Each structure stands twice: as structure tokens, then as C-alpha cells.
């Protein structure tokens, strides 16, 4: 019988800790970052794609937010300001890998290749999840928060048991790091060496509660050490750093080296959703300071200074973004086709007799309502 050393003599605890300062490849002025750590700058075509997807994502986000104000969406949680996380993390995934997003990650869904309508089904309100998870390897968006981390660990560990080369990326925010499931997921992933990457988009607020009221930890990345999970602290507004960090986590996981925890420091520019009033809990000066650190502007500066983006290409991209906005408007302005009979379809593999009776009763009720008065 194995007698486990306690504490483990082999573990070098310090190697699990994140850097003191966030890793950065491109700084907020578009110059090479001063603290790249071990991260390598992505290739030029990757940098151009990161920029392109962020421009498209930003336009998609602002259009969806506007449509929510017009009542075309039930609600819209904007990810403006977190563009580098949304795009960088998803582009770092391979085709066979899985994404476990939350409700704030619509731009991540778009970047993963989901059609606009399918990406916005939940928030429009026609159904809870509008896409086939298996088609895009994207789990349904997580609304309760942190519960998706365990699903990601389970899926990743199953891949390992089946000897499939697949990595799961779980997206969470700063608030979700207080939930028990996050801690259980980090623990299970550490014990099982599951091929999973946890990306914490630390945007400073859980709805209205600031990070200082959320945790006394020095950083959220530091939580990994308690579970034997190595962690990285990165500049979450630097798309190159997000891409490189997530990519390194994916490569570690695929090589059988287990999970990685990444904390990306970023900021939620908009209110929690269109139903929120951010002026009740934060000052505009704070927001405007973060506007200075815009993820798109810095990469654009870098690309232009490096000769990787010219005005003509930027113009074509702007036109592509407007075309996408039009697509968002068209698909969200189309009439919703929600079928009440479908409510009973997917409760069990086969509807029970009791559900069949309820369906018949509901349809009769609807038919009666629709009957013209005599």
C-alpha cells in the first residue's frame, strides 16, 4: 500500500505562484511590454487576427447592448473592456478543445464561430441555449456561475480516460472565485491532473461588489497554490498576453502536465447589464482611467507601428464590423418563433404520459384564446 508523504516532499510550492506583476507582452501605449515573463509574442498573423476579432466583437457587443435597450433582447451583459480576454482565450483553443463560457461571454461565442442568432438565443429569450454544444465544442453559457468549472474538469478528465487529446477552458469572473464549485474544481483538476485551463476575467466587480469585498487574497491567481495548480497573473487587456498565456496552459494540459489557473486583470466598462445602474457603486473617474487602457487601441497602435496594419486594411475591417452589426440587427429584429409545444419536448428523453396531458391542455388553452369571439 502506498504511504503518501505528508507534506509532499517533491512539490516545489513556489513554482506554483504567479508573478508579482501581471505578465504583459504589449503595454497600454502599444509598445513591447516590460514584463513578458515566459510568454512568447504571438506570430504577426495571430496578432492581426486578435485585432480583427476584437473589432468585430466590440461592434457586436455594442449593437447587442443597443438592442437590449430597445427591448429586442431580454437582457444583455456587455463584455466591453474585456475584449482581449474574450478573443485571446478563444483563439488560443484548438478545434477539438472545449469552451465553458458564462452569460458575459457572448463575444467569446462569436469568436468561436457561432452564428449571431445562436450566440444570442439565451439573452434574446427564445430558449436557454441556442446552439448545439457538440457542433462548436462550447458548453451552454453558465448563469449560476462557477458551476461550469466542474463540468470542464469532468469533460477534460473523461478525455484523458478515453485517451483523447482535448483540453477544456473554463471562463469565470472574480466573483465566481468565491463560490465553492471553483475551489472543488481546482482541487479535482489538481488531483486528477485534468487537462483544463481556468481563466479568471477579473473585471473588478461582481455586479456591484468590488474585489476588495470579494477576497483578501493577494491575487486571485494565488489561489492555485492551495490546489497544486500552477498559476499566471496577466494583463487582461493585452490580447497578445491572454492568447499566449491560455495557449501555454492548453499546451501544458495537452502534454499531460495538468491544469493551469490564469487571472487576467481587466475591467468591465459597462454596467453589469442594461438593467444595472453602475453609478450607484463606482465613480466615472475609475471607468475613464480604464478607457485609457483599451485593449483594441493598444494592439492597433502596435500593429500600425510594426507595419502589420495599414489604413486600407483598417477601413475594410470597419466595413466588415458594420456588416456584422447589420446582421445582429436583422437577426434580433426578426420575429421570435417560440413554440409552446416544445416546452414538453426535452424534459426527459421521451415525454411522460403526464407531460403529454399537460401539453394537450396547454395547446387547448391556446386554441381557445385564439378562437375569434362569436
Amino acid at each position, binding site marked *: 500500500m502506498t504511504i503518501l508523504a505528508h507534506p509532499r516532499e517533491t512539490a516545489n510550492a513556489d513554482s506554483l505562484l504567479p508573478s508579482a506583476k501581471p505578465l504583459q507582452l504589449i503595454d497600454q501605449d502599444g509598445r513591447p511590454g516590460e514584463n513578458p515573463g515566459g510568454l512568447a509574442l504571438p506570430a504577426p498573423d495571430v496578432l492581426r487576427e486578435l485585432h480583427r476579432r476584437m473589432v468585430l466583437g466590440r461592434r457586436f457587443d455594442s449593437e447587442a447592448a443597443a438592442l437590449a435597450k430597445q427591448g429586442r433582447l431580454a437582457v444583455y451583459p456587455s463584455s466591453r473592456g474585456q475584449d482581449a480576454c474574450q478573443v485571446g482565450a478563444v483563439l488560443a483553443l484548438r478545434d477539438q478543445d472545449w469552451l465553458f463560457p458564462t452569460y458575459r461571454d457572448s463575444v467569446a461565442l462569436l469568436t468561436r464561430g457561432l452564428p449571431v442568432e445562436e450566440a444570442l438565443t439565451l439573452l434574446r429569450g427564445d430558449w436557454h441555449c441556442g446552439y448545439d454544444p457538440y457542433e462548436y465544442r462550447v458548453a451552454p453559457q453558465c448563469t449560476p456561475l462557477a458551476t461550469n468549472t466542474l463540468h470542464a474538469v469532468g469533460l477534460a478528465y473523461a*478525455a484523458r480516460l478515453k485517451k483523447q487529446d482535448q483540453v477544456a477552458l473554463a471562463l469565470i469572473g472574480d466573483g465566481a472565485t468565491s463560490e465553492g464549485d471553483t475551489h472543488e474544481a481546482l482541487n479535482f483538476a489538481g488531483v486528477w491532473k485534468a487537462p483544463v485551463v481556468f481563466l479568471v476575467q477579473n473585471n473588478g466587480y461582481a455586479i456591484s461588489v468590488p474585489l476588495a469585498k470579494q477576497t483578501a487574497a493577494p491575487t486571485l491567481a494565488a489561489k492555485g497554490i492551495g490546489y497544486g495548480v500552477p498559476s499566471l497573473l496577466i494583463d487582461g487587456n493585452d490580447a497578445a498576453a491572454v492568447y499566449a498565456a491560455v495557449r501555454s496552459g492548453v499546451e501544458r494540459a495537452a502534454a499531460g502536465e495538468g491544469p493551469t489557473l490564469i487571472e487576467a486583470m481587466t475591467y468591465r466598462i459597462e454596467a453589469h447589464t442594461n438593467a444595472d445602474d453602475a453609478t450607484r457603486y463606482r465613480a466615472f473617474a475609475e471607468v475613464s482611467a480604464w478607457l485609457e487602457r483599451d485593449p483594441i487601441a493598444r494592439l492597433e497602435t502596435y500593429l500600425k507601428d510594426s507595419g502589420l496594419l495599414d489604413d486600407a486594411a483598417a477601413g475594410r475591417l470597419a466595413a466588415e464590423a458594420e456588416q456584422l452589426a447589420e446582421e445582429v440587427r436583422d437577426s434580433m429584429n426578426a420575429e421570435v418563433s417560440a413554440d409552446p409545444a416544445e416546452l414538453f419536448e426535452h424534459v426527459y428523453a421521451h415525454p411522460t404520459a403526464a407531460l403529454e396531458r399537460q401539453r394537450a391542455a396547454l395547446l387547448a388553452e391556446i386554441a381557445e384564446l385564439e378562437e375569434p369571439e362569436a
Partner: protein
Amino acid sequence: MSTVMSAARQAGATRETPAPPAAPPAEASPATMASALNRALADSLAADDRVVVFGEDVGALGGVFRITDGLAGRFGEQRVFDTPLAESGIVGTAIGMAMNGLVPVVEMQFDAFAYPAFEQVTSHLAKLRNRTRGRLALPVVIRVPFGGGIGGVEHHSDASEAYYTHTPGLRVVTPGTPADAYRLLRQAISSPDPVLFLEPKRRYWAKETAVLTMDGPPIDQAVIRRPGRDVTLIAYGGMVATALEAAEAAAAEDWDVEVIDLRSLSPFDDQTLTESVRRTGRAVVVHEASGFAGYGAEVAARLTEQCFHYLEAPILRVTGLDIPYPPPHLERFHLPNTDRILDAIARLQWDEDDEDNA
């Protein structure tokens, strides 16, 4: 879609009609409910390599009730393994594994220890098929030893079924006999729906000489354990044996009691129950859990709705008291017994002129 995932999904899509391996005709042999459950797990692991069994202490120890005894040794640590002590983690990771084509069968060590997993069960396991319009099926089985009668200290004896039966999308089943424990667990593991499998721990050591087979009533069908003409006694799990004892005792007083073992608490077998109650005109439902807003309330209400014109008396409930589960030396006052069941039967308006019976 990658070919790997396609294959996994196709496999998932066809698992509703499992083909049990051909076996020589089995002979009836004595089995306890615990050994029948162990056989069901072993046979499922042998029949389907997507099945994995995990939880706290299920590996080397074989589970605190020994239900997984010997499985880790026989099937290896890739198929049967211990987990960290975290119930939400166990169910949450089972969901992810099922998404990737496995068929997880997980153990919650005791009823009250399953509560940390409640969010994963109700918000995810039970709903993901619905949330994804049927694209994501989760064939997960959660085994939960439940109920009292074994002298357990606090948090070891809860009858927690109503928490789960209130959740659409979840199947909740519980066996009353060793042979049915085998059948129901194998049916649960073969089900395309997630199943909460409640094991009546007071009956783990009950013996029955029977052939352990999947053949028999399907997962969602109640079974008449004892036919009778006068009253329908409805029970499940640990109370089935108690109900049968009560029926024997009632026969001495000339009441011919029909005992129905529900097996599936959700979905509910309206057909078998309605047919019986319309025939007998009287019914009593028995469970260990507290009566207030308990499972028996639903049974009584829906059978009253469906059988009103056939009823000779209100449907009565014999349940645990509306108290937190008592300590070992007091649990006998809480649990339904033969006498309480007979008292309820006596109150079923047998003589219209006898006001005392009302």
C-alpha cells in the same frame, strides 16, 4: 464536429436500448440488497466500457456500505475510483464526463451528505437536456443511501426524496427488494435520463432468493407486491417491507390489502396506481419522510383528482413526524410502523354509521 465526438454522441444516442450480454439461464440464489447492488454495478461495468463508478471511499474500501466492494480491484482505477471529499465536485464532474460520452455512476455517501451537490443536480443535471433542446443528454446515476432505521447519528438518516422529485428532468427511483435493486440499478444505468437512485439503507441486508435479471417491469412502472381487494397501500424503498407486514396483519382483521411498490417516484406511474385505487376505493400512502409537503401529499392529491368518484374515504398518509430526524434512541417514535399503518387503514370510513371511524 470531430469524429471522436460524433462517435461518442452516436453511442449516447443508441444507449436507450442496451443489449445485455447473453448469459446462461441464471438460477435463483440468495442475495442481500447490498450484494444485488454490487452485482448490478459489476455487470454494468462489464457490459459497457463507458460506465465509470466514483465517489468517496468507493475504491479500496468498497464504500462505507461495501456496495462497491471489489470493483476497483476487478475493473481498475480508471473505471472505479475515489474522489476528493466534495459532493458538488463529484456530481459536477460527472456531468462533464457524461458530456464527453461516459456513463458515470456516482455515490453520495449518505442522504444528508448529498446536499452540497444540490445545485449541480437541480440546475444542471436535471436541466441540461432541456436547456440545450435535447442536444445534451446526461446519462448519470447518483446513488444515495437514504432513510433511517439503522441507528445512525444525525445527518445519516434523512429521507430526502421530495427535494429531488420536485425537479423535472430527473428520474427518482428506489427499490424495495434485493431482486428489484439489481433490476432498477441496471435500468437506471441504461437510462438516457439522469437518475437519482435512492437505496433504502435499512434494507441493505434484507435477503431474497431470486434470479438477478434486468427482465421485468420497466424503470417507470410500479409493481403490485401483494394483490388485495379492500385498500391500496402505497409504499416505496424501505417502507415496502413494512407495508407487506402491515398487510399480513390486516388480513387477520379481514382487510384484504393491496400493496404497491412505486419503484419510480418520478415520473409517477399514474396508470397502475389509478387502476388500483379505483378498484379498491381506498388508499393509504406510507413514507419515512416528514408528512408536511412530503411526497405522500402529491400521491394523495393526484390520486384524489384521478379517482374522486371511486373513493370511499379520503386518502390517508402515514409518515414521519414533522421534526428534524431524531437521534438513534428516539427514531422508533418517528418511523412509520405496522401499527400506525393499521390505524390508518382502520380510519378509512369502513362503516358509514360509525362516526368514531371518521
